[in-house]
C-alpha cells in the first residue's frame, strides 16, 4: 500500500461493469521532502472510501488485495483507495 494525494477526477460513462458505481480518481504518490516525483508516478485508482480531490489516501496497488477490497473475485482492478489518511508520523 502507498500514500498518495488525490489530484483529479475522471468521468467515464462507458467503462467496464466492475467499475460501475465507483469513482475513478487520479492519485499522485507522496514523496519525501526534497525528492522530486517522476512524471510517470501518477496513476488511476478506484475509490472505495468516499475520497475526494485534495485528500491524502491509502492506496492498495495489488490486484488480489483490490479484489478482496471490492468483494469481487474477478474484478479487473489493480489500484483501490482503501483509506483516507489523517496523519503520518515519520521518525527518520
Amino acid at each position: 500500500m502507498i500514500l498518495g494525494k488525490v489530484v483529479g477526477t475522471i468521468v467515464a460513462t462507458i467503462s467496464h461493469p466492475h467499475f460501475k458505481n465507483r469513482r475513478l480518481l487520479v492519485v499522485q504518490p507522496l514523496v519525501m521532502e526534497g525528492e522530486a516525483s517522476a512524471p510517470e508516478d501518477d496513476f488511476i485508482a478506484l475509490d472505495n472510501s468516499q475520497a475526494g480531490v485534495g485528500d491524502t489516501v491509502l492506496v492498495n496497488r495489488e490486484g488480489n488485495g483490490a479484489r478482496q477490497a471490492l468483494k469481487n473475485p474477478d474484478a479487473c482492478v489493480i489500484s483501490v483507495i482503501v483509506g483516507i489518511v489523517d496523519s503520518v508520523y515519520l521518525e527518520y
Partner: protein
Amino acid sequence: MLFGRVKGNAVCTIKYPGTQGLKLLVVQPLNKNMQPIGGLQVAADVVQAGVGDLCVMVRSREAALAMPDEKFVPVDLALVGIVDELEVKPDGAYDVSLRRGKNQFT
C-alpha cells in the same frame, strides 16, 4: 491503472486460442498531464473505444480478467473505460511531500 490515447488498431489473423474476437488497439500510455510515458503499446479493447479516444487502461493479470468471456488469456493491457471528462489539479496545487515528524492531513 493508467491513461492511454488510442492511436490506431492492430490486426492479427493468427491469435492464441481464447483471444479470437478481441479488438486490439495501439495506444500511447500517458500520465495525468497527458504527457507520453514510453512507447506505443497494444491493448485489448472491451469498451469499443475508437481512434483518438482517451481511455483508462489496466495492466498485468487484471487486464486478462477484464476480458468478457475467457479470463485465462495472454493479455497484459486492457482498455476498460473511455474518459468523457477529466479534471486534474496542476502540479504544485497540493503538497505531496512527507516531512520528518508529524504530517497532519486533516
